[in-house]
């Protein structure tokens, strides 16, 4: 047991897990988080807390993650290399752990040009692979990135992202392998719309035995309208939307219902792919849709949250 997190324990038991996503508010209002947790509690096993997603300044992912812990839903706190150097990242990992956070997702981060402060200076002291390596070194070797020793280590479950839909395709599996080699315990993929490509990705992953070395959670995203779908197709790099999905959404009388239905069908198909250990539902600013999706995708009830095992901690 690396972290004893609920997510880790479920995956280790072979449970097909469900994770969700929660974007912290663009304000100091903790009620926004509590309300969103309300939609998700009992529907997902853990929830990703985004870190200044799309380079828009929001409440910190660690702070929002703590509110999540207090509200009774296990967070997967995302951290990006864009805004913080290795000093700040390590400091946040330690602080997050001390405040009860047990899952951390290490990301590169969207470029700041997409956000609301495009004139800022970026950091990218580390890349996501190096970030994963650093957290693993902290946890398993009780050492800082510099090599200096630490007395009490952050026992976190380490996550990383993979995008099977960006280019070059063949290298996407290699990059995921690098993250696993660096120490990623679990992987969450970008949302799948192109099932055929995802199947090829998983086939390559299985050939390299990656599904046995880390838990791979397939991402899905319910979309509200054909406009949202074509926007992603045309304006978000690294997203592939097949034409039949656009046609289906375009022909739908009720976009929201169709979006949820397509997401449910996708989950059912993804569940059958060998090596997929769970589903990551990215319902961006549409957390209310998650209960229905989870229920209709036959993912309920979620297993109860048990008390974490006692971890003996010493040092200062």
């Amino acid at each position, binding site marked *: 047991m690396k972290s004893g997190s609920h997510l880790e324990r479920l995956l280790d038991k072979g449970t097909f897990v469900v994770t969700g996503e929660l974007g912290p508010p663009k304000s100091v209002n903790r009620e926004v988080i509590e309300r969103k947790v309300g939609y998700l509690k009992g529907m997902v096993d853990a929830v990703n807390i985004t870190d200044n997603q799309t380079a828009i300044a929001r409440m910190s992912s660690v702070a929002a993650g703590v509110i999540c812990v207090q509200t009774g839903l296990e967070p997967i706190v995302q951290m990006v290399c864009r805004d913080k150097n290795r000093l700040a990242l390590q400091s946040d990992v330690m602080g997050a752990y001390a405040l009860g956070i047990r899952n951390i997702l290490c990301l590169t981060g969207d470029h700041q040009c997409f956000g609301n402060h495009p004139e800022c200076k970026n950091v990218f002291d*580390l890349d996501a692979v190096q970030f994963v390596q650093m957290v693993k070194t902290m946890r398993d070797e009780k050492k800082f990135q510099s090599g200096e020793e630490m007395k009490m280590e952050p026992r976190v479950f380490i996550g990383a992202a993979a995008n099977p839909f960006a280019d070059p395709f063949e290298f996407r599996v290699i990059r995921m392998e690098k993250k696993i080699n660096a120490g990623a315990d679990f992987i969450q993929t970008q949302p799948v719309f192109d099932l055929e490509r995802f199947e090829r990705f998983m086939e390559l992953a299985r050939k390299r035995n990656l599904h046995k070395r880390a838990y791979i959670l397939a991402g899905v995203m319910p979309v509200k309208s054909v406009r949202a779908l074509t926007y992603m197709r045309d304006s978000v790099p690294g997203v592939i939307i097949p034409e039949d999905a656009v046609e289906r959404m375009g022909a739908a009388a009720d976009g929201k219902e169709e979006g949820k239905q397509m997401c449910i069908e996708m989950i059912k198909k993804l569940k059958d792919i060998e090596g997929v250990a769970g589903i990551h539902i990215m319902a961006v600013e549409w957390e209310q849709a998650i209960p229905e999706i989870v229920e209709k995708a036959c993912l309920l009830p979620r297993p109860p949250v048990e008390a974490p095992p006692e971890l003996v901690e010493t040092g200062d």
Partner: protein
Amino acid sequence: MIVAEQKPIEEVLKSIEPFDKILVLGCNTCVAVCMAGGEKEAGILASMIRLAREKAGKLVDVLEKTVERQCDDEFLLAEKELYDKVEAVLSTACGVGVQQLSALLQIPVLPALNTKFMGGTKDHGTWSERCSGCGDCVLELTGGICPVSRCAKTLLNGPCGGSADGKCEVNPDTDCAWQLIIDRMTALERLDKLLEIQPAKNWKTARDGGPRTQTREDVKL
């Protein structure tokens, strides 16, 4: 070469506004190649200034000169008598040249250019960034394509999730450096090298370690 571009003329005119006698000093090396501040561009700029000030009813005496390199005192000191005749120098060199001359003079030395990057000629009239002077070259590992200067996120372990159709998510006109690296390493049959994890980079040798100076004791006079 160091690639630069001329500042908007309004900004240049504003900076020289208080002066009635200036020297426009060109530089015949990098900024001449990238057509921003060589003899020809310095001459055109001088003419534009004269015209604009004439139009504004505030005549200015503009001297013109271009030296081989403004980053060497040797070339700058050769024009000493010119500086004594003016109230300010408008340099069309890169930021290095402006500072080199400024350190020698008691009068203001003003930049006419915005210095942008170290790069090479891509096509006629197009220059692209190729090096950020990190002080610890990784080109051996990346097939001769620099991810430090050419990847928008300075990634060292492969492309981010925004690489699509060979282009960078930040700008569809920019090639994804990692797509180029992977293509090149594939052609060189060295793709396996990219599976190795590149550890956290030592940025001490880069600008992050503070302003850098290099000394060669063996060539000091």
